[in-house]
Each structure stands twice: as C-alpha cells, then as structure tokens.
C-alpha cells in the first residue's frame, strides 16, 4: 500500500486546522497524525485519488483554513 508523508511545522500550523482538514478529507484518504521534532507528520494512505494530488490539495486546504483565521 502506497503511503506518503507531509511535514507541517508546529510553529506555523494549528493542530485544530489540521484536524479539521483531516476530517474534510476523510472520504478521500486515511490520514495519520503524529508529532515529532517540531513538526506534525501526516501519513496519507488508502487514497481514493492520486496520492500526490491528495497531499498537495490537503496542504492547500490547511493553508486556506489558517489564512482565513488570520487578521491583517
């Protein structure tokens, strides 16, 4: 089974946003979350579509969630 990891900096990303995104993507992939060395390590597996596209779309989704909560 093909898996891929995504590293998101703990300093930049909020766990709530990551968990919200994980929930939103629950129909498209199984996503495991771990915390290690200042990063959230997200492991993608059982992807319904291309695993590469899924990871990239997930990254964009988390960035979007974070950006919407930020005030300039």
């Amino acid at each position: 089974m093909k898996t891929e990891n995504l590293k998101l900096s703990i300093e930049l990303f909020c766990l709530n946003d990551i968990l919200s995104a994980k929930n939103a993507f629950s129909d498209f992939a199984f996503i495991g979350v771990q915390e290690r060395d200042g990063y959230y390590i997200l492991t993608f597996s059982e992807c319904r579509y291309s695993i590469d596209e899924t990871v990239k779309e997930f990254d964009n989704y988390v960035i979007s969630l974070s950006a919407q909560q930020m005030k300039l």
Partner: protein
Amino acid sequence: MITGKCHLQYKKWSVMIMTIKFSRDIYSKEALFKAAYYYCDRAYFHIDADESYFYVCITPKNGDNSIPYEQEFQNKAVEYMNRQIINKKTGHIREIIMARAFASTVILGDNEDSTQLPEADEESAMKDWFDENRKS
C-alpha cells in the same frame, strides 16, 4: 523598505517547482499565508520555516507555467505586508470612525430618558448626531 531586495531569494528546483525564501525580519507569517490563499486555486503551496527564513514551495496546478507565480507571489506578499503595516498604523482610526458612525444613532444626552425616544422622521435618520450636538 519592505521589498527587501537582498532578503528575498528564490531558486528553481525544476521547471515545475519553485521555492522562495522570505526573511522573517521583513515578512510575517500572516502575509505569506494570505498570499498563498490568494493563489491556491492556481498553484499548490507548501510553507515551512526555520529560525531566519520562511520557505514557500510553489507548484503550478495542471503544469501551467505560463504565469510567473514566483514573482506574482512575491508581489502579493509585499501587498499583504503593506496592508498589515497600514492597518497597524491606522486601524485604530478606522475603528473610531466605525464606532462613531454606528453610535450616532443610539447616543442619548444626559437628560434624555432612554424609554422616551424622540419620534423619528425621515430627515433625522440622515443627520449625524455629532453635527447636531457639537459644542461650538
């Protein structure tokens, strides 16, 4: 200068993927996230950081290399930084203006009873309370 010409470097790993380095002294996390959000329908983004720099990795969607995303992203990041600076300098003025605009319809004088509001007419709704009650 916000543009920070020497602090902004980028290199192309390949035709498709670009990584741009932004100095943390000049750019804020908020500006980079907002800029990425602006373009997230056209490119994939990955944002990372170390002690001195933010790293933004851009991959155009659908292999579309016709748009210079690295330059566009840099411009957008500068724009959002500029907005942040202006907001820091003038945000409180905007809040006062908004508060005053909304408060003008509800402020009562010292001797007025809140249960006995004057009858409203069409013209009074368009007049500013401060203009009518300003002490000369």
